[in-house]
């Protein structure tokens, strides 16, 4: 039999065509990175752009994202250092990312002593090409990736590669803080984290931009949690209210390893975010905690995937959201148990507070199971504050305003309480308060 190669029509996102890609390559970088980009670009042009008829995009029209207006920032240059921020002291390494450059700042010798690599992808490709080759666009990504995954693979303009060697316990971990302030610019960050066998580490991310700046981010993260490792990622997203984001994040969790992943979303005008974890080795576990608050005219769409590709695995997901004013949220969750994934425990909960008429939250939990002998539960709730709880607090002298605040805060507390860093808990509380007041 002969195979006939079918020529698919070339499909590119506005402004991100062949010529643009050639210009990206012309910026020059290591062979391993160029090869990966070229491979990705082929996929990118062959994957159809999403439309509203795709189930994933049914509630979030792709045309909400003004890609045509956004200019890709040139590959961010690395600079020696950037100004300090109040929470830097909590970490051993701080990476500051701005539109005109980024700095990797070691605050002490800990990372070096432990043999931890915190490198830009460009540096990593020079120093550890075989690791980059293995993990960038590696096994964490799904076989059939979507348009924006391939787009990020081909066009990323800021890349990080973090490697924590076997058995290393990195207690204080690192902070990556983004402060973007260039109008009509696009940041396409790529992060690869490899937590080696039996290692333990925590990474915090803080994403910020001023409300006045119109800007777009299309990040992608690949998290590799090797056998017996324990890795925590806390991502606090406070992009300004005039910004846009399309995210695709993937975690691969090997035998007896544990991934604890927090996604805390307050910002953007429009965002579409996908977070997927695969508990891929027996005894592995993923805890996914999320929190989101869409107020004003914000539109936030989140899709989570809890993939169980191995037997004897555990995943627990708790996403709590509030919508207010004409805010809109979409939560789609999917538990996927692959054939043979028996003795699986999978839990998915999405609770939503709808704080006024005119605000809207859609919650679509789901299961896709190709195995038996598993314990699965999924559930969601939607509703305003409970009048009995409100009355109880008011009967103790709290004003209606304060009682509402306490209840909304309390609603989120189950997630906030688990966040490992106190200062992030504080910022989260402040964000919730501000959203309630506005």
């Amino acid at each position, binding site marked *: 039999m002969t195979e006939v190669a079918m020529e698919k029509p070339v499909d590119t996102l506005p402004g991100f065509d062949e010529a643009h890609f050639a210009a990206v390559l012309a910026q020059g970088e290591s062979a391993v990175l160029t090869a990966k980009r070229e491979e990705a670009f082929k996929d990118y042009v062959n994957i159809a752009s999403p439309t509203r008829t795709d189930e994933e995009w049914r509630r979030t029209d792709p045309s909400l994202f003004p890609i045509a207006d956004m200019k890709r920032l040139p590959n961010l240059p690395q600079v020696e250092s950037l100004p300090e921020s109040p929470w830097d002291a909590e970490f051993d390494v701080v990476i500051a990312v701005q539109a005109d450059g980024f700095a990797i700042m070691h605050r002490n010798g800990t990372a070096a002593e432990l043999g931890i690599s915190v490198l830009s992808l460009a540096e990593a490709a020079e120093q550890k090409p075989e690791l980059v080759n293995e993990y960038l666009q590696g096994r964490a990504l799904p076989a059939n990736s979507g348009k924006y995954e391939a787009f990020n693979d081909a066009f990323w303009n800021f890349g990080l590669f973090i490697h924590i060697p076997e058995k290393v316990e990195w207690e204080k971990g690192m902070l990556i803080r983004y402060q973007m302030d260039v109008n009509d610019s696009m940041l396409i960050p790529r992060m690869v984290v490899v937590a080696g066998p039996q290692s333990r580490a925590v990474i915090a991310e803080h994403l910020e931009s001023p409300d006045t700046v119109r800007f777009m981010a299309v990040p992608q993260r690949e998290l590799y949690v090797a056998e017996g490792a324990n890795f925590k990622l806390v991502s606090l997203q406070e992009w300004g209210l005039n910004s846009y984001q399309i995210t695709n994040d993937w975690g691969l969790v090997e035998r007896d390893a544990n991934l604890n992943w927090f996604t805390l979303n307050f910002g953007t005008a429009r965002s579409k975010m996908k977070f997927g974890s695969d508990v891929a080795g027996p005894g592995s576990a993923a805890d996914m905690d999320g929190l989101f608050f869409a107020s004003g005219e914000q539109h936030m769409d989140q899709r989570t995937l809890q993939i169980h590709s191995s037997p004897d695995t555990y995943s627990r997901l708790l996403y709590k959201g509030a919508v207010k004013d004409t805010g809109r949220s979409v939560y789609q969750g999917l538990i996927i148990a692959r054939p043979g994934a028996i003795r699986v425990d999978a839990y998915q909960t999405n609770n939503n507070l709808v704080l006024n008429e005119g605000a809207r939250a859609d919650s679509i939990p789901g299961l896709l199971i190709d195995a038996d002998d598993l314990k699965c539960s999924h559930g969601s709730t939607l509703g305003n504050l409970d009048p009995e*709880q409100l009355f109880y607090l008011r*009967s*103790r*002298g*709290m004003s209606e305003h304060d009682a509402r605040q306490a209840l909304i*805060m309390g609603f989120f*507390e189950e997630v906030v309480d688990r966040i490992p860093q106190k200062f992030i808990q504080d910022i989260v509380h402040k964000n919730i308060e501000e959203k309630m007041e506005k």
Partner: protein
Amino acid sequence: MSETKTYLEIRNLHASTEDTPILKGVDLTIAQGETHALMGPNGSGKSTLANVIMGHPAYEVTDGEILFRGQNLLELEPEERARLGVFLAFQYPVAIPGVSVAKFLKSAHDATHGDNKLKPAEFLKELRENIKYLEVDDSFINRYLNDGFSGGEKKRMEILQMLTLKPRFAVMDETDSGLDIDALQVVAKGVNKLAGADFGLLVITHYERILRYIHPDHLHVLIDGKIVHSGGSDLVKKLEEKGYDWVRQEFGEEVLVG
């Protein structure tokens, strides 16, 4: 002056929920320093009366008035009533996950004490004393309010709140139900700590048992939204001696009890 002052005055109170009348003309006057007991069959409207005194938005007052120390409570929001010193120990306290007992008690204390707020350290000291007094476990204060509490723990929590807020007038809605004797004594201890000249109490109960610990000056029987019988210490004594069954026989409650 030895003359007793009127504290709480309820006149011809009518209240309904979703157009169903529940209270159908309640008259009740409580003088300063007095304790009154209110009994009556299930569904007669006792909790509704308690909730209306506190200002629950689910009930509409269609007629009558409630005056507290001369002030018309019906014009006030629940929190304003609380700040005047009105307190309700709920029959079924709701759980509030995510709100810790300590934080909640501090907010409630601050809200009801206007200019006499305590510094956090002073507040904590007083809270610890109250906790000890009520024989409540220390770990209580770091738990979420009523979340996962047993029935008895919830009732103790109500009393702890009462001691913290030091109200002038309290309604205790079946705080005694489901409590063992030890817990009941703790509740009585709490009440007796507040009892005094500037305190009034309305105790709603199904059982004469609690009356041995909290000695009411007056007793009322509520049936179908109306007080059908009231009496002073004679009636209380009779009830203590003859038990609550006597009320049932006297007022035909046996057909109503669920």
